[in-house]
């Protein structure tokens, strides 16, 4: 099924095509992996040819404008409520794949109840969770996922876990629910991990289309602006700290309420 194009009288096999994202410049900061996540979602939609069968939900946070980039019907949720919207959509349009994109403030703090209950009900949705251990959009405050000792705008002396508790590992919580069929932690810090992340997105969308239950794909990400680092330094910190605290890999590959 390889596609070909003809140029200067010669036939070429198409090996890569630009994803069908909307024609809009992304607003993400230099070095941020949010754009990678959205591009990969678009690639999966394109490759599966399911633009008409996917409905997405954007959060409040850095991915708030995801609907300006991803080329499918989308809804913009209130802060933390993406999984509730996704539930509503999936219940009245059961033949569609439904996904959310949410940051850690949105998903793990203000929207934790919606997230956990959607996973526990086994809603047929794919949750893409961008965890960069900080509130990016509002200027780099401490999130529930902020690492111990991590300096942020609202933990200037570093996260004190005696005051703020330990970082919340949401993937470890939702993997315990019967409702989740796929729980994985991925990153986008190098080409190998980007390819693995894409596979995870594919699997999650596929699960939603086939009503297998809730898929939870955590992208352990970075936030150069919020971390107050250059993109290069942020990659170093990402690999040395984030990936150590949030180890990558599949936490669960089967499940769903039978």
């Amino acid at each position, binding site marked *: 099924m390889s596609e070909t194009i003809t140029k200067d009288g010669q036939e070429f096999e198409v090996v890569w095509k630009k994803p069908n994202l909307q024609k809009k410049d992304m607003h993400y900061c230099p070095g941020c992996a949010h754009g990678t996540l959205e591009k990969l979602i678009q690639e999966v939609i394109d490759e599966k040819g399911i633009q008409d069968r*996917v409905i997405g939900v954007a959060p409040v946070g850095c991915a708030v404008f995801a609907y300006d980039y991803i080329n499918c019907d989308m*809804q913009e949720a209130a802060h933390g409520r993406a999984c509730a919207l996704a*539930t509503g959509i999936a*219940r009245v349009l059961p033949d569609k794949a439904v996904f959310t994109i949410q940051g850690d403030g949105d998903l793990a703090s203000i929207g934790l109840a919606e997230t956990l209950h959607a996973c526990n009900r086994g809603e047929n949705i794919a949750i893409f969770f961008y965890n960069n251990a900080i509130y990016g959009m509002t200027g780099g405050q401490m999130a529930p996922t902020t690492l111990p000792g991590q300096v942020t705008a609202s933990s200037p002396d570093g996260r004190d876990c005696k005051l703020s508790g330990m970082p919340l590992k949401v993937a470890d919580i939702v993997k315990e629910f019967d409702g989740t069929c796929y729980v994985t932690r991925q990153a986008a810090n190098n080409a190998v991990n980007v390819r693995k992340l894409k596979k995870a997105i594919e699997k999650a969308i596929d699960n939603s289309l086939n009503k297998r239950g809730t898929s939870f794909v955590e992208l352990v990400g970075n936030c150069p602006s919020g971390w107050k680092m250059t993109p290069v330094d942020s990659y170093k910190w990402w690999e040395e700290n984030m990936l150590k605290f949030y180890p990558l890999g599949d936490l669960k590959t089967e499940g769903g309420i039978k």
Partner: protein
Amino acid sequence: MAEKYLMKGNEALAEAAIRAGIDGYFGYPITPQSEVLEYFSKWLPRKGIAYVQAESEVSAINMVYGAGACGKRIMTTTSSPGFSLMQEGVSYIACAQIPCVLVNVQRGGPGLGTIQPSQGDYFQATKGGGHGDYRLIVLTPNSVQEQADMVYKAFDLSEKYLNPVLILSDGALGQMMETVEFRDDYKKPAFDATWASNGGVAKRGKPVQITSLFIEPERMEAKNNELQAKYKLIEENEVDYELYHMEDAELGFIAYGLSSRIAKKAVDLAREQGLKIGLIRPKTVWPFPAKIIKEYSKKVKAYMSIEMSVGQMIEDVKLAVECKIPVEHYGKTGGIVLSTDEIIAKAKKMIGK
């Protein structure tokens, strides 16, 4: 109209929603509304219609947002504290112009309050309980029959104007049993859902974006202007009220919902005593029947706003009469039933008899 049923107001409301073609219900238990949820929990899954008992009212209203934005007929029901929790979502829904039907079976407040009936949420219902410049269309039934009839109307209006419609009921109307007939002539009006996020990018040629976010000031203002133009249209076309013995009235009662039934009884009793009293009953409290209240202010000596609150609708009555005649309030709170004797005693004082 077909057979008669003896039903609770809450059940009649749910049954009417099913007959009106509801596509999904999302709710959370709270007294005195829970029978609606219970009724749906029995019948919707059996009919293959979406039903979720949400984890909170916050979630329920956002499920309504998601499902309503797919162009479906969606409803949630709650009671006062629950409706307070929903206000953020209601504001988003109003801005994104998602049709849906909301029901507040009011109980007494503020705070956790009481589970007894109340009309203390009038401000919240009519002035915008959430943030920003938005309006709900607010229907006010006063019987079990109207609890049913207004559901069809609420769905139709919400789709006609792409606006959330609130049925403002109360604990007594929800809990009382009366006979009710369900209309058999109802036909869902044609509804163009091309705006909805239901997949279909290929057909439309572009994706749908359901949003209430307009970062650029000019776009936000344009959205507000668009909403205000719609609200003006609703005010012109959808005011609904009932007049009772207003033709020769010297004093006008103004009451909606449960209070209007007691006020009506008070009119009858007063007229037996030779007092010329009438009643204007708003069946919509937004848009408010200000025009008819203003018109009759030229004929009556005064108005009495009768409410199960410390006086909220009275502010709209005063605005309507532009301070030209006295307007007084009679009400009770805490779920204490309004007394016709007290209403008549106050009426006599007001007209000097």
